[in-house]
């Protein structure tokens, strides 16, 4: 028995390119901070010279985030409603506070990290002065402060995965894999950007190699998440199969994210050495592009797939 649509209405989604861009930049910031935290939280001396530039990269990439969020509101002048009408069941309500607290903590972390490395930051002079006393950091040392900042960063990144994940009837998003997938992609894009920044300074071979290894590991994890997603979508329901079909038909996902953003960089970043700087740079740029395209395809196809079933 065949059923054919003759006329079906699907009201258009008001979400446009700003939403994936917002998720992407937030991910870049969080990923770069994770690299900085390798030194400040996990005390890897090899990342000592990387910690500060990574933290600054994290801050700079966060700058577009609030603007993208505001631009995405169709009533931007009412943004303050978010601050006075907290809805505990809304993921956006929690996310709003996370993206306020995270950059504040990040500034404090940068000031404290700069202080520990003898770098004075004129615009953060006051913060640095107060951070030099234990009261100024509420008794938190650099490690405590970095754990706090990293926790906020991870939550600020994860909330977008939950924002999508809790939406009923969107089979592509309703997956326990999504938070891990997004976080891995955030780490890999942030690390790739830090690699580009670091290669333009005075890079040390060993540090570059370790950083590239982190990127390769995260890319491998992304492949794992992608394949897990394909299997679960394809095996569980007809809705899942239709969503998977759409995902595979989407060139942004298959050619953009999977091929150009994961597979090609895995080849380019193989056997990293400072003699292959341009190759490493291209690899890192492709990784960042892949992360951006992943956000576009997951958000776009997720909405499109649900439109088949409403």
């Amino acid at each position, binding site marked *: *028995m*065949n*059923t*054919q*649509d*003759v*006329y*079906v*209405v*699907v*009201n*258009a*989604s*008001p*979400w446009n390119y700003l939403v994936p861009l917002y998720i992407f930049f937030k991910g870049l910031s969080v990923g770069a901070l994770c690299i900085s935290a390798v030194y400040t939280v996990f005390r890897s001396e090899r990342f000592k010279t990387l910690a500060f530039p990574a933290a600054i990269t994290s801050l700079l990439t966060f700058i577009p985030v609030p603007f993208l969020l505001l631009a*995405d*509101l*169709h*009533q*931007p002048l*009412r*943004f303050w*409603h*978010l601050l006075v*009408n907290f*809805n505990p*069941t*809304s*993921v*956006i*309500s929690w996310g*709003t506070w996370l993206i306020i607290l995270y950059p504040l903590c990040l500034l404090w972390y940068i000031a404290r990290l700069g202080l520990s490395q003898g770098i004075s930051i004129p615009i953060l002079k006051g913060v640095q002065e107060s951070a030099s006393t234990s009261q100024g950091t509420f008794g938190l040392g650099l490690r405590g402060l970095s754990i706090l900042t990293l926790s906020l960063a991870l939550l600020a990144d994860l909330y977008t995965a939950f*924002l999508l994940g*809790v*939406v*009923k*009837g*969107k089979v592509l998003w309703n997956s326990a894999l999504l938070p891990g997938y997004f976080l891995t992609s955030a780490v890999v894009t942030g690390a790739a950007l830090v690699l580009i920044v670091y290669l333009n300074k005075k890079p040390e071979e060993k540090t570059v190699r370790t950083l590239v290894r982190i990127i390769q590991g995260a890319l491998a994890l992304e492949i794992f998440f992608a394949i897990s997603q394909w299997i679960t979508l394809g095996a569980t329901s*007809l*809705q899942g199969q*239709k969503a998977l079909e759409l995902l595979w038909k989407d060139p942004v996902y298959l050619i953009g994210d999977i091929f150009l953003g994961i597979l090609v960089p895995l080849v380019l970043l193989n056997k990293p050495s400072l003699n292959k700087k341009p190759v490493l740079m291209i690899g890192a740029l492709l990784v960042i592009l892949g992360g951006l395209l992943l956000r576009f395809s997951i958000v776009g196809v997720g*909405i499109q797939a*649900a*439109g*088949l*079933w*409403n």
Partner: protein
Amino acid sequence: MPTEKKRYGMVIDTRKCVGCMSCTISCKMENGVTYDGFRSWVDMTERGVFPRVKRNFIPKLCNHCENAPCVTVCPVKASYINADGVVLVDQKRCIGCGYCIVACPYSARYLHEGLKVADKCTFCVHRVSMGLEPACVHNCMGKARIFGDLNDPLSEISQYITKNGVQTLRPDLGTNPNVFYVDAEINKLPNKGGK
């Protein structure tokens, strides 16, 4: 006996729908719905193999879900359920984030181009408060729509539900819709030509 508290709902008897779309048009006129959005519409599918083919009409609107995802996700509590069980949007509070529009599994919301806020069916509360029926019910030439208080066992809608088997859209999602269908070709197949 009716309880004090009302719970408004609607039954749509698809056997009586002829697909004339007067509900869609009257809703647009009554509520100033913009060109590219719909509060109320009629989906059409064809089922069967020639020469035994049947066209089905499925009028759709906001289901005024008891467990409304749009209300759950609204970060500023602009989407709410009023005392009569009607899901509404406070247009002065809405920030136009669009989350509710994406979160509605029935695609029943849209962004009002002029007002820049989320908009959807209100069961014509402005008419109901004056003792009138919603515009789509009033203008339905097939009398396919019955509106009323689901908490009143003597109301026409409650009696209709008792006498006819009804179903709701996507009951698997646990949204508990207050819009019910009689004899609708729903919940069976994907919209896009599945087998």
